[in-house]
């Protein structure tokens, strides 16, 4: 079987993120190349699982809940989210 090799260049990651990536790879006992390959493979696996499964299969059936409580928690989280995003803008 012929081997296909590919090399990718990543631009615009920034020094901080690059350093964090190197640190993370080291922490996981991987080379930076192996770590990036692992990330790509993980993401592709998520994508494959998403295509072939269902919401119910992924998350389980769940059970009857207090929907007003969910709404209230979501509303609070929304406020936090929009406060954060307006600070960033």
């Amino acid at each position: 079987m012929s081997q296909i090799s590919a090399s990718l260049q990543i631009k615009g990651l920034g020094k901080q993120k690059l350093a964090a990536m190197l640190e993370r790879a080291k922490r996981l006992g991987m080379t930076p190349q192996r770590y990036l390959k692992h990330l790509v493979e993980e993401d592709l696996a998520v994508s494959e699982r998403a295509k072939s499964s269902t919401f119910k299969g992924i998350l389980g059936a769940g059970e009857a809940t207090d929907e007003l409580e969910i709404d209230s928690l979501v509303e609070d989280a929304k406020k936090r989210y929009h406060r954060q995003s307006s600070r960033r803008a």
Partner: protein
Amino acid sequence: MPLNSFRLVLDTNVLVRGFINSGSDSGRILQLCEQRRAVTLLSSAVLREYRFILADTKLCARYPQLEQPEIAVAIERLIYVSDLYRRVGVRFDYPRDPKDSHLIELAIAGAATHLISTDDDLVSLPNGRTEAAKRFRQRLPVIEVVSPYDFLRLHREKLRLT
């Protein structure tokens, strides 16, 4: 109306309700989207909010079934069954609740037929008398803003629900 001409924008709490309980009205709407009986619309802004809320520590502490690896797959699944508008290119000023303007902007850009929400302000918008309500009717003259329960009840036959 052909089945897949239901074009839905889901308010965040509707998505969360559906993720937590697949048997709820919101969960049934998600299943209809999987079965291509309706299409969910997404924008980058809406997706960012969904992701943030579904990772919220208080929400996840209360509902431990929202496990992050599963949520990542579920969001990916949502993208898979949705029409994603990366650039919406529409502005809608909604002073009553600016947090919801991105939902209206997506509805306009994606020619949504329904905005599914339980938020009273949004639900009353199509019939409101405010300046924003008038602009809303101008931009979205035929949209219905309804709760998950009302959406299923009103379109039971068209959705071929048993």
